[in-house]
C-alpha cells in the first residue's frame, strides 16, 4: 500500500469553537491506483488533500506514505517528503510567473539537490512527456491554461514522486483542455503513476478508476468506477 490512513481526525481549533473537519477517516491506496476524492464544499475533501499532501498535520490517527509514518514529522521533514514523494497539480496552476516553463519544472529538483546536468535532462524529458518540448522557454503568461497545467504536471513528475496529488486540476480549464489533461493523467497512470485527484465534477471523476466520496468529514462511499471513461484515442 502506498497510502494508509487510519482513524484520521482533523479538528480546527478556532479558540471558541472546535470544528471537526475530518472524523475518523480510514482508507488505503495501492500503487498504480487512480483515485478520485469527491464531495461538496465543506465535506472535508480539501482538508484531506492538505493532509495527504503533507501541507497540514492531522490531529489524531495515523498516515503512512510509502511506508513512512508522516504523522509525527516536523516541518522540515514534511518539506522533504513533499519534495521527494509528492507531485502537486493545483487548480490555479501555481507556476512562478518570472520563471520559464523549463525553470518552473526544474524548481523541485533544486530543492532536492539534483545536480545541474541531471536537472536539465529530467526537466526536458518531463516537458516532452506532456507535449511541451517546443514551449520550454516560454513564461507562464505566454502559455494557455491547458499548457500551464501541463507544465505543472511536468513539474509534479520530475522528482519521480510516489503519488501525484491533483486538486481540481481542470477547475480553471475549458472542456477541450480538460480532456487533454485527463488524457495525460490516464497515460501517466498506465505507465504506473499513482494519482489521487480531488474534484467535485462527476464527469471528471469518471475518468478515474475509483471514487471516494466525502460528506461532513466522513467517507460515505468508496467504489470502483464501473463506467469509467477511457481516453487515449480509443474511447
Amino acid at each position: 500500500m502506498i497510502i494508509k490512513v487510519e482513524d484520521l481526525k482533523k479538528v480546527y481549533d478556532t479558540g471558541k469553537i472546535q470544528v471537526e473537519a475530518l472524523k475518523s477517516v480510514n482508507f488505503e491506496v495501492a500503487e498504480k491506483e487512480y483515485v478520485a476524492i469527491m464531495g461538496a464544499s465543506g465535506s472535508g475533501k480539501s482538508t484531506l488533500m492538505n493532509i495527504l499532501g503533507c501541507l497540514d498535520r492531522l490531529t489524531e490517527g495515523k498516515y503512512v506514505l510509502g511506508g513512512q509514518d508522516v504523522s509525527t514529522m516536523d516541518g522540515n521533514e514534511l518539506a522533504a517528503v513533499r519534495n521527494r514523494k509528492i507531485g502537486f497539480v493545483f487548480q490555479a496552476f501555481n507556476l512562478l510567473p518570472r520563471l520559464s516553463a523549463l525553470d518552473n519544472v526544474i524548481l523541485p529538483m533544486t530543492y532536492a539537490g539534483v545536480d545541474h546536468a541531471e536537472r536539465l535532462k529530467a526537466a526536458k524529458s518531463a516537458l516532452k512527456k506532456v507535449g511541451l518540448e517546443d514551449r520550454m522557454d516560454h513564461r507562464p503568461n505566454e502559455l494557455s491554461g491547458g499548457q500551464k497545467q501541463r507544465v505543472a504536471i511536468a513539474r509534479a513528475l520530475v522528482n519521480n514522486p510516489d503519488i501525484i496529488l491533483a486538486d481540481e486540476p481542470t477547475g480553471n480549464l475549458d472542456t477541450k483542455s480538460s480532456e487533454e489533461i485527463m488524457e495525460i493523467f490516464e497515460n501517466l497512470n498506465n505507465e504506473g503513476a499513482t494519482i489521487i485527484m480531488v474534484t467535485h465534477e462527476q464527469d471528471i471523476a469518471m475518468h478515474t478508476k475509483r471514487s471516494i466520496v466525502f460528506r461532513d468529514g466522513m467517507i460515505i462511499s468508496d467504489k470502483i468506477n464501473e463506467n469509467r471513461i477511457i481516453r487515449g484515442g480509443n474511447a
Partner: protein
Amino acid sequence: MNIKESFKSALQSVMANKMRSFLTMLGIIIGISSVITIVSIGEGGKEAITGQFESIGTNVVNVSVKARNNDVQARDYFTLKDAELIKEKIPEVTSVTLANGDFGYLKTESKSKEAEIDGVNESYTKLVKTDMLEGRFINERDVQTQRNVIVIDEIAAKKLFGSESPLGQKVKVNVGSNNVSLMVIGVSESASGSMGAMFGDNMPGVGFIPITISDKVLTRTDIGMMSVMIDDMDKASEVASKIVRLLEKAHRNEGKYAAEEGFKQLEMIDNVLRTFTLVIGAIAGISLVVGGIGVMNIMLVSVTERTREIGIRKALGAKDKDIMLQFLTESLIICLIGGAIGMTLGISLGFVVGSLIGVSPGISLQTILISFGFSSAVGIFFGLYPASKAAKLDPIEALRYE
C-alpha cells in the same frame, strides 16, 4: 538549493523590480558614500597634518622662556652660545634650532609685501622641512659671518619679482624703524602648502635671515624659543631636564625655562582629528541605518507580495531555511550592489572634495573592506526579520493568498 543558485535567483528578482530596487539601494548608496567620503577626507587630513608634524620632526624638545614671569630679564634669553653648549654637553642632542620672528615688509623699488621675518640658524631645516625652489637656505657660514642675506618664500617672490628670478637681487627689509638691504640667496616653497599658493595674495610672505643679523633687522631680538632635536624620544624627559639644568647654570637663574616634548602635541592633534572623524562618521553611519530600514521595509513588502510564491516553493519542498536564505540573499544583494555603487561614489566624492580643500583623500583597503562589511551587515541585519517572516509562513495559507 545552494548558495550560487540562491544568488542567481535573488539577482533575478532584484532585477525584476529595477526601479524599486534602485530606490531601496539609494539609502545604502548615500550612507556608504557619505561614510567613505568623510572617512577618506578625515584620514587624508590626518595624514597631511601628521606629515607636516613629521616634517617638523617629532623627536623634538621645545625649550622656552616662561614669558608670563615678569621678572624675565635680557640675560635670561637664549643665545647662540647656549646652542653650542647644549650640543657639546648633551650627547643625545643632534641639533639645536634657534629662531626669533617679527613682522614687517619686504620691499623692492616698486613693490612691497607684508611678511613674517624669521631669524634662524642653519639647523632650522632639520626642524621644519623646507624645500627650496631656487638657490639655497641659510647655512652655518651665513650665521657665523653675519652675512646680509635673506631667503624668501614663493609667495613673497611672486609678489615682488613676478616671473623674474629673485636670486642675487636686493630686497629692503623694513621692520619697525629698521631698514636693511639684504641679498636674496634662495626661494623656499610656501610653508602653508597648496592652500598658501591658492590664497597667495592674501597670505603674508616669509623671509628667513641669519639669526646673527636679527639685532639690526628685527625689533624683537630676544630669542625665547629653542627646539632641540634628539636621537631617541624615549630619553626625551631625561634630556629635557638636562637641558633646563644646563641653561639654568649658564644663565645663573632658576625656574625660568620650560621644556616640552614635541611628540605630545602630535598625539593631541591626532586625538582631536580621530574624534572629529568618528563623530561625523557616526552621523553618516546613521544614514546607513536609515537606508537599512528602507531595505527592511521593501523586503517586508516583497514578502507580502510574494506570499503565494513562498507557498508554491514550500509545497514543492522548500524548507524554512531555503526560504530564509532566498530573502536574506535578496536583501544582501541589494545592500552589496548599493555598497559597491556607494563606494565608487564615495571615493570619487573624496577626490573631488579633497581637491577643493587641498587634501589628498586617504582611501585604504581597510576602508573598502569595512564598507563592504558594513553593507553586508546592514543587508543581513535588516533582511533577517522579513526573511524569517517569509520562512515561517504556513504553506496552506500562503497558497491560498490572492
